[in-house]
């Protein structure tokens, strides 16, 4: 067993490639879920909201080793389509649930990508949403939804029946300001990325406030708009610190175990691209891919992420697989960077 205080999170490999036309790759991937066989489901928000870009919105299925397995759903407002997919969760039967912030609904597909149904409409009542974002099944098979502009977490059966809710607008304990990602730990506690309050809140499975971490700056343990997180079997938290372009790894006591900025190399799909674009590859190999120029005034971290390809750019969420590997959904770079613990 690894002692994480003595171990190091090491970059393993990258899954992904920029693809606006569907097929292998992603376009602004916003979340990730694994099925019971370890297959990755990745929803892409897409290139733009222009009609001719709708094909870039989809859910991609692939393996951790980049075997492309297919995709389902595309951009649009009809049943079975998605416009602003935000999050994906799989139930115990492998059905895929996707939240959609533009259409204010949860849509459901079976494991073969056949559309099954939807629920939700815009509003603030039970069964209604105002930009539903993070979704997650708890160990009882209840679907939790962070209902961002209603500043609450709602609970539903897998069939879409409202169960309960908690939270309201504010910055006190148990209150939210546009919550986004959700996660749970081995004990069934629920973690909410309380995005605009720059903190992570922890609740019991029934929604009782337990504690919070955060603060609004770039120091260790503080966040700038945290958007998603994962909690591993040891209770270690992996927080996508979206506005700080990093992932922070924290113990339950708030101690920092690591802070990742991104280490991406070329994925398998990227290598395949360069086998037929050798001249571009040759130019890359001559170039300085990690420049350190004099940046103009502005958001330095974003500027670095826009220029240095290996770095995270708008990392939206983190997942941990059954083997304990850490997957960072690196949205603006259309990829997932994979890390694993070594040593310790």
């Amino acid at each position, binding site marked *: 067993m690894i002692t994480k205080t003595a171990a190091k999170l090491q970059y393993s490999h990258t899954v*992904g*490639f*920029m693809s*606006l036309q569907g097929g292998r790759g992603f376009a*602004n991937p*916003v979340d990730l879920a694994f099925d019971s066989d370890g297959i990755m489901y990745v929803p892409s*928000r*897409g*290139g*733009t*909201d*222009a009609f001719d*870009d709708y094909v870039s919105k989809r859910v991609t299925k692939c393996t951790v080793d980049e075997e492309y397995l297919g995709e389902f759903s595309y951009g649009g407002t009809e049943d079975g389509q998605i*416009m*602003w997919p935000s999050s994906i969760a799989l139930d115990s039967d492998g059905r895929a649930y996707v939240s959609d*912030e*533009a259409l204010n609904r949860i849509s459901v597909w079976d494991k073969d990508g056949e559309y099954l149904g939807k629920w939700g409409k815009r509003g603030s009542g039970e069964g209604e949403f105002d*930009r539903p974002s993070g979704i997650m099944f708890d160990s009882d098979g209840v679907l939790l939804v962070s209902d961002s502009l209603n500043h609450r977490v709602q609970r539903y059966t897998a069939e879409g029946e409202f169960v309960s809710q908690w939270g309201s607008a504010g910055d006190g304990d148990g209150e939210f300001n*546009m919550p*986004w990602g959700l996660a749970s730990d081995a004990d069934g506690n629920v973690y909410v990325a309380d*995005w*605009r309050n720059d903190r992570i809140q922890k609740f019991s499975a029934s929604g009782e406030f337990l504690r919070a971490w955060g603060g609004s700056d770039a120091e260790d343990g503080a966040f700038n*708009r945290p*958007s998603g997180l994962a909690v591993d079997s040891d209770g270690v938290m992996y927080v996508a610190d979206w*506005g700080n372009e990093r992932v922070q790894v924290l113990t339950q006591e708030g101690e920092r175990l690591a802070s990742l900025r991104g280490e*991406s190399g*070329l*994925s398998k*799909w*990227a290598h395949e*691209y*360069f086998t037929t*674009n050798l*001249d*571009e590859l040759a*130019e*890359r190999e*001559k*170039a*300085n891919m990690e*420049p350190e*120029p004099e940046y*103009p*005034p*502005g958001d330095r971290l974003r*500027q670095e992420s*826009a*220029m240095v*390809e290996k770095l995270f*750019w*708008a990392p939206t969420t983190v997942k941990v697989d059954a083997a304990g590997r850490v997957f960072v959904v690196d*949205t*603006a*770079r*259309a*990829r997932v960077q994979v890390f694993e613990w070594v040593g310790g």
Partner: protein
Amino acid sequence: MSEKDLALMAHLMRRAGFGATREEVEERAAKGYEATVEELLHPESQPPALEDEDLLRRYHVDGGNLMAIQSCQTYWIYRMINTRRPLEEKLALFYHSIFATGYTKLNHPKAILNQIEMFRRLGLGSFHRILVEISRDPAMIFWLDNKDNHKGAVNENYGRELLELFSMGVGNYTEDDVRQASHAFTGWTIADATLHQARTDRDSIWPYGRLDWHFQYRGDDHDDDEKEFLGNRGTFNGEDIIDIICEHPATGRFVGRHLYNFFVADEPQVPAWNTTPPRDPEAVETLARAFNESGFDMRTVMRTLLNSDFFKEAAFAKIKSPTEFVVGTAKLAGGYSFPQLDDLRLADETSNMGQILLDPPSVEGWHTGVEWVNTGSLVSRMNFAAGEFADYNRPGVQSMIRRIRESGAYASPESLVDECLGLLGHVRVSEQTRGDLVAHAEAAGVLCFEAPEDAQASSEAISQLLQVIAATTEYQLA
């Protein structure tokens, strides 16, 4: 405050910004004209232009990497609508019109958006600094081929446009000056230019999206020989050339004429400037004098312009650009203060009307004035404005209806028309147009807000009147 004060403030905000609602016009008029001008001239004293930029990137996720031109246009238009520093944003559009840099050649719209950010940062500072920074700007270096301007193999594109379109204008320099200026800018390039050229050539977004460019000065590729430029002799580098340009009397006049054309009244297109005198030579001379006496300080020049009589008397002397039309109308109709699915539509609208932001047709920028208007673009304008005002649940339209209701202006067709013209920015119309509008209002019958069904019908009637006003010739004018 008088109607005249309100009309003048509405004029100021249309020109130094993108228009204002009646509430904002009243608030600013209460502060006073000159105080408002000072506020506009000091954006740094105002809250951040866009406090909710994080919201924009959260919901418009494509606004994170800004890989597509539509994503960049959406971002910019959202910012124009919501900024609390309107002159900063309007000047960015002004400089974009002069230092016109286009997506089509670059395939990298974020590089142009980075240039726009530089205009925001420096737009009210020294014009000398702006010229230095535009010469170092990666998008400009790519656009005008200065990355291909080498010691021993000079490319004159940038040197030529710097003199012809960016600072002095035709007739004030020779071909030798172009050549010498180009020599002085050798070695001003972007890092890893051949990689970025290769990626641009195939519009490569692979494997992981676009990479920002950055300036690089290569001393080994700079021609350090002695040069003769505009009668001066020395081993000039690019900054030395800009020193000489700024001191030259043609530059102040050229910049002044550009400012006059953009902020005051329509001028002929730039290529005609060396043969057609300015519409108001004295005004251009006033601006040139402010430019020279202040050491090229754009804040001083803008202060002179906005406080001048020639500016105050120039209401409706310009045809709104598509961007001014779309952003101004969207601000009045309201409903764009939080990111939403169809924000992209506004960018499509300016494109349909003939102004593809971040992709001007050539280095000359857009032809302005009457050239904005043709049958197709006029229909696009009317349809867009009608669509905006048709929904009387939009917050801006709601606010206008509420004011009409509270003021009692709906009591007669004449007062209703006058009130609506006032609410849309003190639009000044001909007697003929006013008569047509009154006839339209009369046809709608007597408005009443007592019963809910009457209130709904009256709201619809007001919404229709707003649509008709937006279709008039006069509403096309700024």
